[in-house]
């Protein structure tokens, strides 16, 4: 939104939506159940869809409409559907194994968020409005929280979801900072998600067949 001036209610809606997006990633950090992770990922993507749609309507940008509906279609419907079908097919009811306990991981997520605010403040605050600083720090903190989720959880599905959250954060950053990005870039990114998801699902299915579990905690050494 650099270079645009918007009416104040757009600012209000945007600050509410980005706060909810951040909270949905904290909801993932605070849970032990795989299906809850997937549902809150779908909710987060839905919020990003609404944000993109609102910005598109306000800035009269056809590309943003297209990107918004592609987001709705792929991130909110297809990806959670594939993941849910996978856990239904393999009948996963186990809890996610954590290397960091839940209170500590929530507080670490908070520290990462504050760090993201600090970084964005140093980087772009002199030449951008405050709402862009807010939204892009939340986008950067989604990237950090995604990394943290990959590190601290021992299940392949949460690894996939961590990558998807990182990607959500990058997408949010691009929408908020440069909404006039060419649509081909967004298409490439969405295609990237689908390919990554399919590849990782196949890999984790192989792992399930080989080791009998989705957990990566037992993978201590490489076997040739």
């Amino acid at each position: 939104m650099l270079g645009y001036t918007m009416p104040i209610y757009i600012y209000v809606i945007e600050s509410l939506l980005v706060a909810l997006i951040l909270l949905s990633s904290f909801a993932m950090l605070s849970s032990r159940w795989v299906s809850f992770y997937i549902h809150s990922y779908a909710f987060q993507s839905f919020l990003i869809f609404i944000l993109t749609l609102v910005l598109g309507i306000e800035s009269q940008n056809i590309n943003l409409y297209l990107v918004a509906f592609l987001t709705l279609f792929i991130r909110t419907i297809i990806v959670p559907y594939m993941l849910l079908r996978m856990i239904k097919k393999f009948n996963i009811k186990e809890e996610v194994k954590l290397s960091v306990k839940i209170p500590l991981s929530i507080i670490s997520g908070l520290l990462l968020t504050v760090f993201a605010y600090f970084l964005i403040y140093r980087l772009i605050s002199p030449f951008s409005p405050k709402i862009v600083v807010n939204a892009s720090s939340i986008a950067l903190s989604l990237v950090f929280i995604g990394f943290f989720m990959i590190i601290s959880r021992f299940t392949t599905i949460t690894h996939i979801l961590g990558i998807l959250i990182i990607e959500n954060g990058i997408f949010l950053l691009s929408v908020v900072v440069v909404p006039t990005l060419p649509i081909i870039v967004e298409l490439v990114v969405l295609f990237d998600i689908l390919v990554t998801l399919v590849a990782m699902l196949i890999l984790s299915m192989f792992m399930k067949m080989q080791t009998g579990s989705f957990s990566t905690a037992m993978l201590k050494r490489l076997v040739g």
Partner: protein
Amino acid sequence: MDIYLNSTIFQIFQVIIVLAFSPFIAGFISKMEEIFEGRRGPSVFQPYYDLHKLFHKEILVPSGASFIFGLTPFVSFVSMVLITLLLPVLTIYPLPLGFMGDMLAGAFLFSLSSFFINLASLDLSTSYGGLGSSRATLLAILSEPTLILVFVGVALIAKSTLPYVMLHVIVSSMPLYFSSSHFLIIAAFFMLFLADTDRRPINASTHVEMSMIEEARILEYSGPYLAFLKWSGYMKQFLLLVIFLNVLVFPWGLSVNHSPISLIIAVVSLIIKMLIVGLIAAVIDTAISRLRFFRYQEYFSVAFVLGVLAIMTFQYKGF
């Protein structure tokens, strides 16, 4: 002269309203819980009958009890009445004693009452008293950072910690009312409200020895002393609801002038708002299961995160 007299009358009326209606709200919430569980439940006026019965019993003091045992019910009751004077229960304009203290003073009075109950439960050195007071102290320690952060958030939004100022700031600025930091503060305070009034994610509020917290602390009391403690418990819930509704969530419907009609409107709207929130609290109480004792940190860390995010997003809200 007339305005001063009217303000004084309103101030007295405020205390009377809180004293009179706090058992009703507690009775309503427990009645709703019973209905949601598929039972008929006691009457809405059951807390009044309880208080009436307890006040007609004789005073029994266990042998070996020190002066703290007799002092505690009155300290608890009087601190609740003092908090009532600080809060905008009925009026949108400040009453004469409203500037006696800010929200921090209210928090201090709440913890003074809790501190004296802890002392009294430790006084007789029974096992249940020690158990209850240690659990209650742990809960207080865990909820304290969030409480402070909520105050900091309110102070940032209103540039003051007086509840009347916060109310005026929210009413006068719609973007501020709908800002994310305001909603995050509301969420954090609601989690604290559920924890402080013994609602479900934290405590079942039962008489089962395994899980009781509030009940274990006042197990030794009986008769009029117990009535005072119970009444101050009802008043605590009522006052937390007043802070939640009239300062944070919905500060409309309060009386704007000194006429009796606006007073009646204020009382009715306050009770209706409380019944709605009580309904929500009863739904939460029946829908959510109780957390294990060693998982309380998860609940309070979520509330802490909400408080910190409220402050962070307020700094860069952009309007």
